[in-house]
């Protein structure tokens, strides 16, 4: 941002920053919400990010594009929130380690594509299977809780979770063709 704003007057600089904010605020909040699962927390993260950007504008040189910088920063911050929660809940250190490793990998087009692909795959699952998988994956419910709620056997629950997992795992493994890459890159944002 430094280079871009160097010769601007304060007012001009502020207007540019406001445009940047207004263009990216909502998509960034949606993006962070998908990581955190909470809209209010997502808004906090994105607002903090912009407040920080503005405060440090003179000391910052952005090497990549503005947009990828914003998403990378938002992702990093969102994972910090997740990590802190995992620490506070005294969860298994496995989760903290995992979040840290995801954080270190950084923002990548590949990960965004993988999320797009998984979203498509989940959308194509039979509704019952999707519902059960969501309860397990997102809400962390035990097989028994899900079975009791749905009035089905634990084995049926396991079966559905496994089917969904298999479908997702399948799209994660094979290399993605360049054509697909192009399509998903276009459909993002």
């Amino acid at each position, binding site marked *: 941002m430094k280079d871009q704003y160097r010769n601007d007057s304060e007012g001009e600089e502020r207007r540019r920053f*406001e445009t940047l*904010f*207004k263009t990216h*605020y*909502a998509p960034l909040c*949606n993006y962070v*919400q*998908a*990581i955190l*699962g909470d809209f*209010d927390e997502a808004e*906090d993260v994105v*607002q*903090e990010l912009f*407040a*920080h950007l*503005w*405060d*440090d504008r003179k*000391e*910052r040189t*952005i090497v990549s594009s503005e947009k990828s*910088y914003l998403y990378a920063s938002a992702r*990093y*911050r969102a994972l*910090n929130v997740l990590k*802190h929660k*995992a620490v506070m*809940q005294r*969860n*298994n250190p*496995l*989760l903290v380690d*995992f979040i840290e*490793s*995801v954080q270190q990998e950084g923002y990548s087009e590949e990960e965004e594509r*993988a*999320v797009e692909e*998984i*979203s498509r795959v*989940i*959308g194509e699952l039979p509704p019952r299977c999707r519902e059960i*998988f*969501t309860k*397990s*994956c*997102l*809400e*962390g*419910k*035990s*097989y028994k809780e899900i079975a009791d709620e749905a009035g089905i056997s634990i084995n049926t629950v396991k079966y559905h*979770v*496994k089917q969904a*997992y*298999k479908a*997702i*795992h*399948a799209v*994660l493994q094979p290399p993605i063709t360049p054509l697909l890459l192009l399509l998903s890159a276009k459909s993002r944002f």
Partner: protein
Amino acid sequence: MEKFNTSAWEWLAGMRRRDRREAVPPPEMTPEEARQLLRVQFLAGRAIRGTIARGYNIERAWRRVTGRRRRKARVWWAAAAAVIIAGLFLSIPRESDDKPAAIAPGSAKAELLLSSGEVISLAGHGEDRRWQARGVIIDNDTVAGRLRYESADANNGDASRFHELRVPRGGEYRLDLPDGTRVWLNSLSSARFPERFGEVSRDVYLRGEAYFEVAPDARLPFRVHFGEQVITVAGTRFNVSAYDDDDVWRATLVEGAIRLSGNGQEIDMAPSEQYALDRRAGVGRLERVDATLYISWVEGRFYFRAYAFEELVRKLERWYDFQMIYLDDSVKSKRFTGFVDKHAPIERALSLLEMTTNIAFQITDKTITARSLK
């Protein structure tokens, strides 16, 4: 694909649950399996949540961002560090010249004043303590934030010697009395009680706010004294809020029956009833309420229903330990209804207020300025 480790998936997904009570031992899995499963859970979670969206108030968000930066970022960041481990990257952190965490949520802390005049600090260094006074065992658990009196024999202790548990601003503490009664003391509150309850009644003197779960004992009525008021109970659950600087005092009954006496009046209360005493007007009013909401502070939330802003702020000031300065007096009387999560940073509560009212806040060290936006 390799075998799907069904039990590892269930266990790993369950780790994120907030309500997970005790640690379930992990099933057998290789680190590679764990990583793979967590990766799918992470990406699938993003994929599922990514399909929902909502509208944002971008103008308001913009005002908050620009308002924040004027607060001198350092202060804001220090306060926000309570939830967020600040991620600094591609930039060099500035030298910090301010104190960290100016305003932070409260925690379990209290001091115990013994009849001898000795004052014992009950929190801070995390040191558990257990001692005896004339056969009464006093046990302090700093992790739970709880002081417990135990007595094998009802004749242990001295009924004329009083102890006082004092909770400062920004604190809360639980007190278990020898009869099995449990008392949760809110910030800036104190309870005075004898080393051993007398022959006629069980008396506790309260200042501030406390939630009581009184152990039943038909022979020995339990009495809570606050100001000129006395609440007499057999065995029941109720909350008393009686701060010296609050205009309205409230007694709220959750379960059982209590009798409130004071100013020559006696009022018998039924569950879900609240007696609100307006101390300036000197009038009281009995009404039906959702009593569980008034004890929500015990479980980590503050509940406000049609509270005057000033009254609400006093509650927050006691817990977060700050001082509010009003630039417009008109702000004080605005009414507000809602919840505040006690363990979230103060900014969360403030932003909630900013969103639902036209009040704007500015934080400087331990002071928050409130002004009304035109």
